[in-house]
């Protein structure tokens, strides 16, 4: 069941369009903002609000890699693996992060604190190699800077 607040926010989005279904991606983002991810249950709930089928909502949800259809950690690390970052040391960085967190790409730490995901281009090539944790971009990364950055996310 979606919360009253989620419903209200989704309704507000719907009001911006002629039809309700174009609000699908925004509705999914709203749910994700509230819960961190979008469960099967939530897909059905969103579908109901929008007068769509679950299949229609799922098509949108699974098209966008940043809509999480599996449970993620409290903080999501998006490490950039596009060309610039690749050249500037993405691989070393990824291995280091993995070692520090004890997980591989696509996994979540056992304490549920971090999920590590690759991302093709964060749009900050000038700061390569870069990563993004939640809403914050971290650039010019080196393995040495990692522990300090991670410590800011409880």
């Amino acid at each position, binding site marked *: 069941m979606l919360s009253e607040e989620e419903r209200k926010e989704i309704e507000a989005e719907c009001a911006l369009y002629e039809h309700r279904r174009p609000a699908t991606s925004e509705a999914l983002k709203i749910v994700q903002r509230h819960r961190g991810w979008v469960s*099967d249950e939530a897909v059905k709930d969103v579908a109901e609000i929008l007068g*769509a089928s*679950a*299949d*229609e909502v*799922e098509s949108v949800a699974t098209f966008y890699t940043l809509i999480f259809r599996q449970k993620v950690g409290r903080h999501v690390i998006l490490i950039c693996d596009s060309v610039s970052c690749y050249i500037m040391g993405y691989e070393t960085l990824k291995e280091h992060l993995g070692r520090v967190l004890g997980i591989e790409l696509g996994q979540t730490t056992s304490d549920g604190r971090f999920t590590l995901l690759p991302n093709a281009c964060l749009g900050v090539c000038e700061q390569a190699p870069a990563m993004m944790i939640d809403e914050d971009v971290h650039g010019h990364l080196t393995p040495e800077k990692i522990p300090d950055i991670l410590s800011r996310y409880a």
Partner: protein
Amino acid sequence: MAVLYVDNQPHEIRPHEVGKNLLKVCLGLGFNIPYFCWHPAFQSVGACRQCAIKLFKDEHDTKGKIVMSCMVSAKDGMRISIDDPEAIEFRARVIEWLMLNHPHDCPVCDEGGECHLQDMTVMTGHTYRRNRFAKRSFRNQDMGPLVAHEMNRCIQCYRCARFYRHSAGGRDFGVMGWHDRVFFGRFEDGVLQSEFAGNLVEVCPTGVFTDKTQARHFTRKWDLQTAPSVCVHCGLGCNTIPGERYGSLRRIRNRYNHRVNGYFLCDRGRYGYEFVNSPHRIRQPLLRENQAALRPISAQAAITHLGNLLHSGRAIGIGSPRASLETNYALAKLVGAENFYHGMPTKHLRIVRAMLDVLKRGPAPSASLHDMEKCNTIFMMGEDIHNVGPLMVLSLRQAVLQKPIAEAAKLHISDFEDAVIREAIQQEKGPFFTGVPGFTKLDDQVTQAYRGAPHDIARLGFAVAHMIDPAAPAVEDLPVERVQFAQRIAKALQDKKPLIVAGYNCGSESIVRASANVAWALRKKGFAAHLAYTVPECNSMGTALMDGGEIDDAVQAIASNGIDTLIVAESNLYRQLSLSGFDTILRRIKHLVVLDCLPNETTAWAELVLPAATFAEGSGTLVNNECRAQRFYQVFSPAGDVRESWKWLSAAMVASGRAQSEPWPDLDAVLAALARDIPVFAKVPGITPPSSFRLMGMPVPRESHRFSGRTAIDADQTIHERPPEPDADTPLRHSMEGYPLQPPASLLGRYWAPGWNSDHALNKFQQEIDGPLREDAPGVRLVEPSGGQPSAEALNIEYLGLVPPAFQRRAEEWLVIPAYHIFGSDELSMHSPGIAELAAKPYLQLNQADADSLGATPGQLMTMTVESAVCTFPLKVGPGLPDGVVAIPFGLPGLPGVALPAWGKIRPAQPGEPTGVRQA
């Protein structure tokens, strides 16, 4: 004529092909260009990149550029190359990449041997796999009893999703994921909700979607014996290709008829076939002596017995709308026209005859499914079309797009650019108005709907007609909001191509009359209105064109004047009559003779049962809802004594002393007699060539030239090669030998061409792509408006009257209306396990307010008394039903043929009252 230069050779193309996409035009010219995402029924999106060719600026351009042929319009003088080395290389790389993740499991794939992907892979010369990385794989879904899912074989052409969502309007299937993990399926496992899901099997160019029913008795395409046939599961007469091996029917595939069903079938038609293989089939004549059980007897003994019955006393016959013209005719001849009755509920007969009357008088002709697609404004009265004329849904869904597409054309969008057109028109739809007694699955296409009782729907129709032409009868006391609605409809219908849809769903002749007035009024005003009617059975129109009494008269005749013998041809009287009518027949008739293919409530009481051939085991003619007569051919020789009913009746003519020798020993003979005796059927013999027809001295084989095991198929029993089963009725042979090239369309039972093993070989059989077949034979329309279609001034229309009074709900009684179900209401298909699994369960349905007034809750057992039947079923609460109306499913097994609508009484069932139907 325009000219297209292909590899420097000039080719003439028809003027109307200019502006069509190059892929379609080139395929029509006979070229082989590989393609995946393009489909003639849903056009181009340029998604697969497989149809690449070179396009040159002019004759001096030697370099050219690669384009997708499905996305470029043909122009006069255009120069293209299919054989250009770069284009060839491009296509080879594309298929290599499409095949990266393909499992290469053709030997165990049900698509193997008739796979478009196989054909295209061979065509492009991609024979060696270089990719050494792991393939991605998917979890498949259980999509119900009809369609199997094996996602690993997908090449992401998007055809399935486009068909399912756009053409069929399904919303429980789509595209998930992205990148190389694109998945075509459902949100979660479960039965596909679309009535057209089975088309995925043919639409998908690979083995992702295959026929689950065929898998249980799998046979490769080339091992099937096939013949041109017609669907028997509703009145639309879609063309089919049934396939047989080892004496059992293995599957049904679409047979292209440009005018009728095009490329598609509904799931009732595709999957209803398994009744032919039912273990309960009647395969031998059965006789009951001295009230004992039915016992098998020889065919000769059965004919003699029938002859004796006919000798000794007075006999009458009841025909059937699900039997061929030939069988109904033969029965009428055997018992005498005055003793022949129609084996359908009297209400249905009257409605169908009313339709025939309207179509004969004109000036509005009936529309084929193809005509309907081109209409641009629709008014539908009373029909729940998904359940009474399924394939019409696809046509209507096309029709509502006509106006928006015409608008899009103003933006200079080519008519084949599907994605662009959809982007341009968004959710726009053309005007589509309905009056229906509840919610229907087509409601999301409808501009405005009125939900009312049958009488009120008819009144709305009459009112619309009156507003278009005041000479049409007016409707008194219409509520003001309905007057406004009628005005809105009347205004919208005055357009280029209006379509009026009506039918038997509501059991209302008034609705048929109203539909006629609307269509005629439009014609009078110069608008080219068409009528589309649904009819209950595959030959309702054909039988109604014959003289014959109503079934209730047959009951009367039996009840009153000493009739000894009743011969019933392929009709289960229990379904056609009220319980009391059925009871009267059983009590009064001395000798009941039934010809049928499966046991039912009527055969259970018969003295003599004769095994009748199904559509797959015999040949004959059916007349569809638009009065188009079409031939179906025997696919295989049945085991046992099974034969067409008309053949049994022909033998009975001799045994009863009515003829010296068999009057109709073969199909040509019975057709000739039919055409001679009943003028309206004069053209029926000519639909297909006579049995003597030969091509280069050869008949047409039902088996492919690759048919395996001819000499060994009976090796477990005999070392001798079985001679082909004889066939005196048709120019076809039960053999792989015969004319090896393309037969005329009327004898075409298989699509195959060199390099084209899949059904896409159809390209090679069409005069032009998406157009008529070569030597086209789309059947013959038997009824056209008298005197053709005169000009508006010459029209002297006599409008139909009898506007019914408004529906008044009663205090103690309920108007019982029938609810039809695509899975459940058709008698024969319910013997197919897949259909039976999906069938509706009996219920009584009320709207919420009415349920509340009875203090009843959903699921609670309710008892309804209507006519002589008492039905106890669980309550369903459905929105949209008018107040004072109760709906009950029609034709589910075990339900008698109550003539609906009728008034009934409802009460909560008493404790211990059994569910089911009993006599009052």
